[in-house]
């Protein structure tokens, strides 16, 4: 099989690490080979955090980074970063699943550039003949659970054969700290059920 490429992006502190870890372990559990790499410059200070995941057959995977324009799935934890991911990395006909949170960078706050709306994001996806899934939970108990919500939505699709909701749920529970398991599971199911 040709590799399936997942590009994950957000802002430092949003829990990209956990999200990527759950996805990697799920792909391994589903029987795929996986290569991944995180690129983080200065994550703590509101910088961009990105994680690349490539899954497929072992003898067909060489480098972990995704070539621009070749991501099958863009996972965003924030709207501007999802948009940046789409513009730079989404392949023609790709999918974007993102949490509709907004963290304005200094350029936007100083009026030097624009923050994209959901409609602009949809338009960018349409230009690339792709699909977009917006995740948003009104009564999310903790902003640090946006990553779990996105996982729930990913789980409602079987994006690659065998990467089922059950596998992703199991890996999430495996990796979550015990104090957070119940709350995570609830958000996961809620986001999964809310699929459009």
């Amino acid at each position: 099989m040709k590799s399936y490429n997942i590009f994950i992006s957000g802002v430092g502190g949003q829990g990209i690490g956990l999200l990527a870890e759950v996805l990697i372990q799920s792909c391994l559990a589903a029987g795929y080979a996986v290569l991944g790499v995180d690129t983080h410059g200065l994550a703590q200070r509101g910088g961009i955090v990105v994680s690349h995941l490539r899954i497929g057959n072992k003898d067909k995977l060489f480098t972990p980074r995704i070539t621009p324009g070749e991501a099958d799935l863009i996972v965003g934890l924030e709207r501007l970063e999802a948009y940046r991911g789409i513009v730079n990395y989404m392949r023609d006909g790709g999918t974007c699943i993102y949490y509709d949170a907004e963290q304005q960078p200094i350029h936007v706050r100083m009026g030097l550039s624009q923050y994209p709306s959901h409609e602009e994001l949809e338009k960018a996806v349409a230009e690339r003949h792709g699909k977009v899934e917006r995740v948003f939970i009104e009564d999310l108990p903790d902003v640090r659970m946006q990553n779990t919500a996105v996982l729930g939505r990913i789980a409602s699709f079987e994006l690659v054969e065998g990467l089922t909701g059950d596998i992703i749920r199991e890996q999430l529970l495996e990796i979550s700290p015990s104090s957070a398991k119940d709350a995570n599971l609830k958000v996961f199911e809620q986001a999964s059920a809310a699929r459009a």
Partner: protein
Amino acid sequence: MSKFADNMIRKDAWTGLMMGNHALVRAMLESGVMVCSAYPGSPTPEIAAAIEIIPEEQRPIHFEWATNEKVATETAFGASINGHLSVVFFKSVGLNVALDTAVQLSMLDCIGGMVVVIGDDPGANSSQNEQDNRHVGRLMMMPIFEPGSPSETYSMFLEAAELSKKLKMPVLFRMTTHVCHARELIEFGAIPDFDYDWTPRFHAEGLEYWPITTAVFPLKRKAFAKLSAVEKHALSSPSNKVLSPNGSEPENGKRLGVITHSIPAYSVLECMDESGSSIDVLKLGITFPLNPEQIVSFLNEHDEVFILEELDRILEHEIKAIAFDNHVKTKILVRPDIEHLMHEFVPARVWDLLSGFWPDCFAPKPQRAEAAEEVSPRLAQMCPGCGHRSAFFAIRELIDEEFPDAITVADIGCHSLGSMKPYEMGTVLLCMGHSNGTAGGLAIGNDKRKVVCFIGDSTFFHAGLPGIINNVLYDRNVTLVVLENYTTAMTGHQPHAASGEIGDKIKIPEVLEALGVKFLRSVDAYMQDKLKDHIRDSMNHKGFGVVIAKHPCMLKFIRDKRKRAEATKRAESVNR
């Protein structure tokens, strides 16, 4: 204990997913490393995290953060000449700081073995340059190992440590950012039953650890002899191998080859997988010293060989020299443009190069069209509530109002971000600890423009003190603002001499007083009016003045608080 820690120290062989930095730690445990010292810097801090997650009573490695890279290297050297296998690690530019020490090591018998691990940064992902430390390995007369993936990090470290012990010589283990941070499934071996013997075995017969004047030459000869042993080892090393995934049939009547290393090797293989072309790849894991026999035979088996390396023209020059000496007729191809001497070699860039040489195998691809959408940049910023931010806000106001032509000198740390909008404080930056020296130079013969420089507290001890001493001695017309936040924040909150987490805290005001700083004030960075008063007074004072603007790193403060709360919650649920 966490599952991660459990796996890390598990005695038997197992297979698991790990990032390069963590795989290195597993290899350290399997090799019997006893001492490890380091100074933090991206892309390497996760190495420490993986060691420190092992509970101390089950951790065979004595690990410590040093004051700077030079001290870290000396610490590992001292342990090695006592017979203990040691590791020192730091980021690319850390080797500059360590160099005065590191350059001596190959002449001396490191009886326990010693591996110098560096995180080079092609692409300058998190550094002030993309220096190619393969040059420095040659200067240091140290063999260089270059893994290109997490699993190679694991296997090559085992080999490097073994070789280092056998030859009693230090080895340079050069990782790069995207090797450190890549993740893959790795088959680990077992951890042997080491006896971890702490007997201090240092022994000097005569001058063999004393390289001064004529004593240098026998020691240098010994270093050359060890290097030639490594050269022989390179021939049979599993780290240097020829890969022919699509067979070795000639392409259009020509036998084609590539000599490459590290991540670029995998990029070549990815391009070949796409094109199906039958090209042989000599992937070098030991890139210094080269084994001429290995190089010549590969060259001779091919009509055209492309040398693909990341950053400087090092393999290119050495391989061309070997080819010249051996009357090789093969056509040697190299990167044509200075642009190719920068950045990383991801597959798309490698494809472009290959298609330039061999368009029949690698059909030229159209340039990807620029996206129509404009996307706002997102620059890193200091955290909300950060004391540095408060200080910069106040000093910006003061300078705008009263000293509009002042020169501000930045240093390295979270506060470097103050150079950007909206503060724009600190408009010249070199490296850690430069600010006092540079500011001193800017103050010479200058009675027109005030000079203000900044430094963080970890950097104060790392490389700041000599510059400060110079400014004290010459009583330079400079105002130094020490941004004290009680941690090494930029690299992930490692402890330092004044953080209070290692031994007795060394207090910065007391150090400055002892050095004889006459103008010295200290204030919380949130007290903006007071801070402005102190800095104004210092700038008006003739001579060197220091103002300490202190406030705990808020990110660390909040995280520590959260951790404490979670620990209490856990304790309560156990008690219930």
